[in-house]
């Protein structure tokens, strides 16, 4: 018994000594540069971009640690309310009911939402009006929009998703009803998938499907249709010719810390915006 205690004691002491060493070494290295931890949490659409930006930023500023967490746009607002994150990441505009929690708002990138169909589809082009009618259930057969005689299988994202919010708002699938209340009119007869990957997989493997994903995730397994005659590309999103696009936001609950300020300056710098572009999104500067 005594022996075990002795060994445990020695181990604890040794660890303590080591930890002390680490601390001293760390502060000596970084000199008088800014140190600290910056936490971002929120939209899973913004998360891959944030991680990319954080990796490069941390290489250049070894004293600062960036922690990137997901959770969703709603979680981003919650995180800054509860002060567990410096920045909340949103893939949509700040909602009216959330405005009180937001002190600072930074647009860090733009993202287009591509409308996709199964590769075997004959349809190449749709208007915003046609997309709206398909998603509200007014048009249910492909032959009405220039395709073959087959029922349209509508694939949608889940309620509350940022991509869905952006898509329904821009295509007017969501709109005010007679009472003046904002209503999402997506047809009840739509398959719902909980992630971009699942939507892609569903549209790629199921005949006669239509769905929507963010431009950065587009791949050859599906076909992106032209909207109002414009194909979804970075140039057309930035120029505004492609109609279905949305902002990526960083929001803060108060004045950002020094380290956080450094990070946001980096994102909006030429170098940061280049990373935005390389990640498949559209730079804002």
């Amino acid at each position: 018994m005594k022996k075990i205690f002795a060994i445990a004691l020695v181990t604890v002491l040794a660890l303590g000594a080591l930890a002390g060493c680490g601390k001293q070494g760390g502060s000596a290295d970084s000199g008088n540069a800014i140190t600290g931890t910056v936490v971002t949490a929120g939209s899973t659409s913004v998360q891959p971009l944030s991680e990319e930006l954080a990796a490069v930023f941390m290489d250049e500023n070894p004293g600062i640690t960036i922690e990137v967490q997901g959770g969703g746009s709603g979680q981003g607002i919650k995180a800054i309310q509860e002060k567990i994150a410096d920045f909340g990441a949103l893939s949509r505009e700040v909602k009216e009911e959330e405005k009180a929690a937001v002190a600072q708002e930074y647009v860090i990138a733009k993202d287009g939402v591509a409308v996709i169909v199964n590769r075997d589809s004959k349809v190449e082009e749709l208007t915003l009006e046609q997309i709206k009618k398909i998603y509200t259930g007014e048009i249910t057969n492909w032959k009405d929009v220039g395709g073959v005689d087959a029922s349209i299988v509508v694939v949608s994202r889940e309620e509350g998703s940022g991509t869905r919010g952006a898509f329904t708002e821009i295509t007017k699938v969501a709109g005010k009803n007679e009472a003046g209340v904002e209503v999402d009119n997506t047809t009840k007869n739509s398959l719902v998938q909980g992630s971009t990957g699942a939507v892609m997989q569903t549209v790629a493997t199921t005949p006669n499907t239509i769905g929507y994903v963010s431009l950065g995730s587009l791949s050859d397994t599906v076909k992106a249709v032209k909207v109002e005659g414009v194909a979804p590309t970075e140039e057309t999103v930035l120029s505004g010719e492609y109609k279905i696009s949305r902002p990526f936001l960083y929001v803060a609950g108060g004045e950002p810390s020094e380290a956080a300020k450094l990070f946001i300056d980096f994102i909006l710098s030429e170098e940061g915006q280049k990373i935005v572009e390389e990640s498949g999104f559209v730079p804002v500067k």
Partner: protein
Amino acid sequence: MKKSEKIIEKLILISAAVATISVALITVFIFQSGLPVLADYGVFHFIFGTTWSPTNGSYGILPLIFGTLWVTIGALVIGIPTGLACAVFLSEILPRKWAKAFRSAIELLAGIPSVVYGFFGLVVIVPAIRTYILPIYKIFNPEASATGFSILAGAIILAIMILPTIVSISENSISAVPKEFKEASLALGAGKMETIVKVLIPAARSGILSSIILGMGRAIGETMAVLLITGNMAKIPGSIMDPVATLTGTIAMEMGYASPTHQQALFAVGIILFIIIMLLNIIAQLSMRGLGGKAS
């Protein structure tokens, strides 16, 4: 020695307390987060409302309850006969050394992560239903949905997922039936099948029933696999080929992006799920007592 015993006793007490307190905390947390919405919206409207559309302020979860029940029932209809037959085969028919290999293969099923089952369902079961079963079904119902995302797909995957539970517990309780029962039955001139059906299974019924209840619990609570393959359409289904949304799937899928009220509503869905599972447990325990849990 006495001192160390006391320390160990305290440690065990702490572990037991942590387990109990966690259950209590989770219950309190779920109810605290969900009850405001239930109170505001009305319990009756919440449970019997047929429109689930949180963005528009409609929180009727009847379609989700139907979805969960149908998928679970489907899984049990496929899983119980298969599982029971498999258990009987392993314990009574297959030679011992072969049974060992079979058993470990089935136990392996329990170790596969559920998202892998879901992906398997998405790339194999759903297209298979679309190509082979839907054309036949369409002869009788030309208006049917044509995607394969359906109750049937969910039920098949869940049936596979609950097999290890049903097989291993049923098999144990069949093996535990006293040898004399079997010998007496055979001595009276009953055949092998007669012995199995009329003596062994009835004698092991309480173990079999508890295996089914555990399997059902898993089927109701399963989230990831079902989420990927049932289509998540919050509409009361008309047939087993229709897509459905389940209680667990909806919570998992919508929690991430939910606005504050929507999030509370999802916790309220959690309360209903909680109550459904409690009720099933109570019913199960009562019926087990009714059957007289003697033989296992």
